[in-house]
């Protein structure tokens, strides 16, 4: 291989890191270079092998739970502070726990929220965790909304919104049925980068509501109501990613 671009610009082009002018220039070069097209194809083969291999690994559930619990507790400290400091620190911590409780309570709806809400979000996060076990995620595997939508039709008496959002970075992965608090719910599965987003949907008689969000055990959720459907999206992706998905699903 003699073209010097195979060791630099080609990679920036392949990774979508060149600006428009740079990309156009490289594409002109591709038309005449004997080396670059083959080198580019080799990179594409390598990337698709890496993607298909699923060698990227997720953190074990035990670690996730351990950490979620640990950051709720006072962190054990290596340094031993004087007893006075310890006392003040304990008081500060006690105060901060009170705040956590108040904030947590407000997030769940404040005076108008109920114990049921807390249970609901706990069940949703549990269902999300369950879905991550091998073989539990998807009943109908398809990236095509016209396959996933009819699949639900024969099984439940409501039609959850199913969109193909691949162009916006949320490719549709498929759907499944799940049970939350004894009720059958539809779950539409999307991906974000390589992370799973479960969107739980069921009919409601309550009026439309703007999204609210929260987190539990390191998972974020966003809940909203629209057109007689209650939806909760849950994932380990950031709350802003979930907000983006909400916008795409409700516009």
């Amino acid at each position, binding site marked *: 291989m003699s073209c010097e671009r195979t060791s630099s610009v080609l990679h920036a082009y392949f990774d979508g890191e060149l600006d428009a002018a740079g990309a156009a220039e490289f594409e002109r070069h591709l038309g005449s270079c004997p080396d670059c097209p083959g080198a580019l194809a080799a990179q594409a083969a390598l990337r698709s*092998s890496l993607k298909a291999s699923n060698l990227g690994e997720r953190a074990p559930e035990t670690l996730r739970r351990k*950490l979620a619990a640990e950051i709720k507790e006072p962190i054990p400290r290596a340094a031993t502070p004087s007893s006075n400091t310890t006392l003040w620190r304990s008081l500060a911590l006690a105060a901060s726990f009170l705040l956590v409780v108040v904030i947590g309570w407000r997030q769940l709806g404040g005076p108008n929220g109920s114990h049921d809400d807390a249970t609901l979000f706990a069940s949703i996060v549990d269902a999300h965790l369950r879905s991550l076990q091998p073989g539990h995620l998807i009943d109908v595997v398809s990236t095509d909304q016209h396959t996933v939508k009819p699949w639900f039709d024969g099984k439940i008496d409501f039609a959850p919104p199913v969109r193909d959002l691949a162009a916006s970075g949320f490719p549709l992965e498929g759907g499944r049925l799940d049970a939350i608090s004894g009720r059958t719910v539809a779950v539409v599965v999307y991906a974000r980068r390589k992370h799973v987003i479960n969107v739980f949907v069921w009919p409601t008689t309550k009026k439309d509501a703007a999204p609210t969000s929260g987190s539990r055990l390191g998972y974020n959720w966003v809940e909203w109501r629209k057109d007689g459907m209650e939806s909760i999206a849950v994932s380990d992706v950031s709350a802003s990613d979930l907000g983006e998905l909400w916008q795409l699903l409700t516009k």
Partner: protein
Amino acid sequence: MSSRADRTAEHVLDAGERVRFERLVLPHLDAAFNLARWLLRDRTEAEDAAQESMLRAFRFFRGYQGGDARAWLLQIVRNTCYTRLQKHGPDDSATEFDEELHPQADVTPEALAIAGDDRDRLMRALESLPARFREILVLREFEECSYKEIAAITELPIGTVMSSLARAREKLKRSLVAADGPKTRLEGGRS
């Protein structure tokens, strides 16, 4: 964790900050574990390192100035892992195979696709690379980081990110299609 600098920089987080940490940083645990797994090439060690990094991030959350929380966390993971690697023996990049001194025929996309279908072979090929090449490939291909994010995590200039990535991919290609398959170098007898 007990150096003087640590002691002065760490604070007890208030409730609002804890909630913010749970939202911004904790969701990146998978990325933290994955980077540690590939840098340390050992899942048990990786779990320890990911935990240590996350708790360290938690302690120093006050020092987080906003911006990309994932990059901030992965920077901590990377430092934690390199510290562990140094403790465990010689720097594995010292014995790296120099492809410039060992020119080989070009690798065809077809040969690559065939070798790449073998998951174990691909894993060994990736594990056989020096740490700095493993990390850049993991960040780019598994975590889908941009060059800018990789530059922030590895504290390298963007130009160096690009050239390192090119070299890393070249090495991975060659290791993958080497006649006898890639050999994993073990560090201090660990697998």
